[in-house]
């Protein structure tokens, strides 16, 4: 029997949640007995070539590329899980939501005290994904099936959740494992 596949991605996140996935330490050996990693920074597989059982999403959506990747995950994964507070509510990147894009660009490329940019130009290469007006939680873009809060969720939370899902058992996390920070 082929093992179910798990895909992961980091959108507008800091890769901290992926570090927390790796923090399951030697349990990752048990995990690869249960699953195969498909498209993920862990495997460096870039494109979906197979249906995945689980998609783990770190980070919210701050640009159009994030939206495309997230929609691609929704199409190719049976179960999508927001991993961490950025995927759930935008997180630190969403702090710009009260500030206009124009002001953000001016601060980052023109007026900021540490900016060195003699041309004064704001990058506009067509290779660069367009920023969205705001940073959006993943659930504002596609349907997310489950949410794993934390910044990052602890390795134990991720482990318990994945094992429960893969072995089709109810998840009963102890109090200490559900935290928003």
């Amino acid at each position, binding site marked *: 029997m082929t093992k179910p596949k798990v895909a992961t991605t980091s959108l507008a996140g800091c890769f901290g949640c992926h570090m927390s996935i790796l923090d399951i330490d030697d349990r990752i050996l048990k995990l690869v007995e249960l699953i195969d990693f498909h498209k993920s920074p862990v495997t460096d597989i870039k494109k979906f070539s197979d249906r995945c059982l689980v998609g783990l999403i770190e980070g919210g959506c701050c640009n159009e590329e994030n939206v495309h990747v997230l929609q691609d995950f929704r199409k190719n994964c049976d179960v999508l899980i*927001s991993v961490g*507070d950025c995927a*759930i*509510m*935008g*997180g*630190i990147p*969403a*702090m710009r*939501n*009260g500030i206009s894009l124009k002001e953000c660009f001016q601060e980052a490329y023109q007026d900021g005290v540490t900016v060195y940019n003699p041309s004064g130009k704001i990058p506009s290469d067509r290779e660069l994904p367009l920023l969205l007006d*705001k940073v959006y*939680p993943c*659930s*504002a873009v596609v349907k997310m099936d*489950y*949410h*794993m*809060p934390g*910044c990052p969720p602890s390795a134990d939370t991720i482990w318990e959740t994945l094992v429960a899902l893969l072995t089709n058992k109810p998840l009963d996390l102890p*109090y*200490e494992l*559900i*935290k*928003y*920070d």
Partner: protein
Amino acid sequence: MSDKIKFTIDDVEIEAEAGQTIMQAADAAGVYIPRLCAKNSLTPHGSCRVCTVKVNGRSQASCTQPVAPGAKVESETEEIKAYRKSLVEMLFVEGNHYCMFCEKSGNCELQAVAYRLGIDAPKHEYLFPARDVDASHPEIFIDRNRCILCGRCVRASKELDKKNVFQFIGRGIHKQVAVNADAKLSDTDLAGVDVAASSCPVGAILRKRVGFAIPVGQRLYDAQPIGSDIEANRTDK
């Protein structure tokens, strides 16, 4: 002793003094009812509705509802738990609650009630409102991004500090806590030792220069759910 009032919460018999609220009687019996705007030393406000229970089938805020003989109170039913969850989720999406860097995280009552109710993520759309920060005072700051409009600061300042530093202005979604001065918090007579300065359940009114003093793992609600102190006095066991 004839003025003892008997009633039940989730079929547990509770004995109360006449004049007590349902929440006061429940606390004394070691039965925790989740709450945010209620605080022991302050007049009940009944505004957050997180302490809603059903009294003889009707929804009431347990912090303001007096006990009545023979009343049948329901608290931890699936219906009421779902109702409380939804209220708390709305508080999260209505403000800007960034737990990951908030000084109050781990000691925050909003967060702790959400943990206790088992909220993984709010179901509602985030509003990302534009709110301001007033850091003009030398010892205290207000971050309105985190304010849940519980009115504890308003009541503490008026009732305990006898100062009336804080007051609500505006209505509905525009409602906010304002300061009783022409412009800024520094223009008021608020002092760092005032009860109002330490009455906030969330991180909206905080003392400066003491944030993150307690390491993660040792904070108030890191290991024990909110309400554990009340439940430790459970009398019917």
